């Protein structure tokens, strides 16, 4: 079974790091943003074996070395379409009927 907690060298993984702590951030930020660190996620090939939460260096697609905390192994994408919006489901039916009625009336 795929191990989601440990990677070996060469695995495709994601590392996370903090680029700026709140105290070091730009001075003109809204309060809600200023209170948070500026965080970064980068994917690459693991240089060494590591467990999630360990410090790890990856080699990115451009060959750069980036060091951070191992956050995910073989990260995927799970965005979807989801359910149709109920406010929109009748739009097609209603507008087709209007166009047909307009043409029938000789428009």
């Amino acid at each position: 079974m795929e191990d989601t907690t440990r990677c070996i060298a060469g695995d495709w993984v994601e590392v996370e790091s903090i680029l700026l702590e709140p105290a070091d951030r730009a001075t003109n930020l809204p309060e809600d943003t200023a209170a948070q660190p500026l965080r970064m996620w980068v994917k690459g090939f693991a240089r060494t074996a590591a467990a999630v939460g360990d410090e790890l260096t990856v080699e990115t697609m451009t060959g750069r070395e980036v060091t951070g905390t191992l956050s995910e192994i073989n990260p995927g994408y799970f965005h979807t379409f989801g359910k149709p919006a109920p406010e929109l489901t009748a739009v097609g039916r209603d507008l087709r009927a209007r166009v047909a009625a307009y043409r029938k009336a000789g428009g």
Partner: protein
Amino acid sequence: MAGKTEAILARKGEIMKRALGMDYAQFERSPIAFDYEAMMAAHGYSLDDIIRIQLAAGVGKTPLLELRNLTDLIRSYAEPGHGACLFVKDEAANMAGSFKDRRASISIHAAKEKGYAGVIAATSGNYGAAVSSQAARASLNCIIVQEAFDSRHVGQPEIIEKSRICEAFGAEVVQLTVGPELFSHMLELLDETGYLAASLYSAFGISGIESLGWEIAEEMTALTGAPPTHVVVTHAGGGNTTGTARGLRRAGATSTQVVSASVDLSGLHMASDTDFNRKSFTTGHTGFGVPFATWPDRADVPRNAARALRYMDRYLTVTQGEVFYVTEAMAKLEGLERGPSGNTAMAAAMSLACDLPRDATVVVQETEYTGAGKHHWAQLNFARANGVEVRAGDPTESVPGKSIVIPERPEQIRAKDFDMGKMRRSYVRNALAHAGEGYTPTSEDIEFLAADTHSDAESVEAIIAALKEA
């Protein structure tokens, strides 16, 4: 601010000069004026060169489609004799799914020609997909820096899809939380790698869009006997308006009205961690559209090649709910399932066409690809999950960040005119502020400001006099 950030920002001029492959200082004329046309011509590519480069790159010559069903729908409720013919340029047919391929193809061609090993762009939008795709074809490395998540590590489905497609094209995607310091990190990456800055606002990118305006004028002339009376452009940073209008002019379509359109997101702060996921549009909205039109040189280049106020005849705003409704209508009536952001101009065009006579021709100059995440259903589901109220009703009741009101009938799609006079005043005020206290504009400055605000010297002088009194 951290010492590290200060150190990199102090070297901004030097880093960008190398990364842009151009010294912008040569175009400066005064603290206000610069030689815009000389800057646009400095890359040396003619429009013919650009069209040739783009054809080889799989970009351009997209279908121009007449929208007969939408036109008849509008005529069914327009005043007698009204309801212009609607057309759309299906830019989703480009390699990476949007008109941004036109921008990227020229930057990538230049990067290759100048011997850069790679390119870097800061974008959470379609431009990332375009740069990644073109870089892959040109065997160049590519880094896309994205503002992707709020502090909870939650990202809009549209941006997550953009991360995916960039990685699908082999780009390194650097994902950040909300904040303008993204720019200083991009500088660090440019410094570390020596890559070309494929800025959205360079002359390469904007010249690349001129082919779109050119194609619209040529194709409409072939189809209807004349260039369109109106072209509606989704407006954010200003490149789309600028490049399209310049292309129309090059094709001789000087009487075509250029109408820019944005989604109204007034009241939301673009650098706010909490507001970040309370908007359903990541571009094409007033949060970029107004500040970039009224001060284009806020961009990541010393002088922005995208100068929308120079070219727009009108600026219309629409609501998020209206754009989602039109996105659904386009799929059901015209068989065009496209991404919502690119349909901003379509919502404005439906309102505009309703008020125009039947012999007017309105071209919406882009569409964008759609898919998981980058789809109106996904975005409405995400809005609901983030506490935004979604309901059917009167779209004028919507409040950005709080509610999305979907029209119940197409008659409710009513774009609002943004006050162009207010934007011109704001632009002149910004230009004077950047020139420094006590600076008196010369006659050359007045001439530049008149061209940059699409007005005349007399109007600019009146604005300056009024600002002095205030």
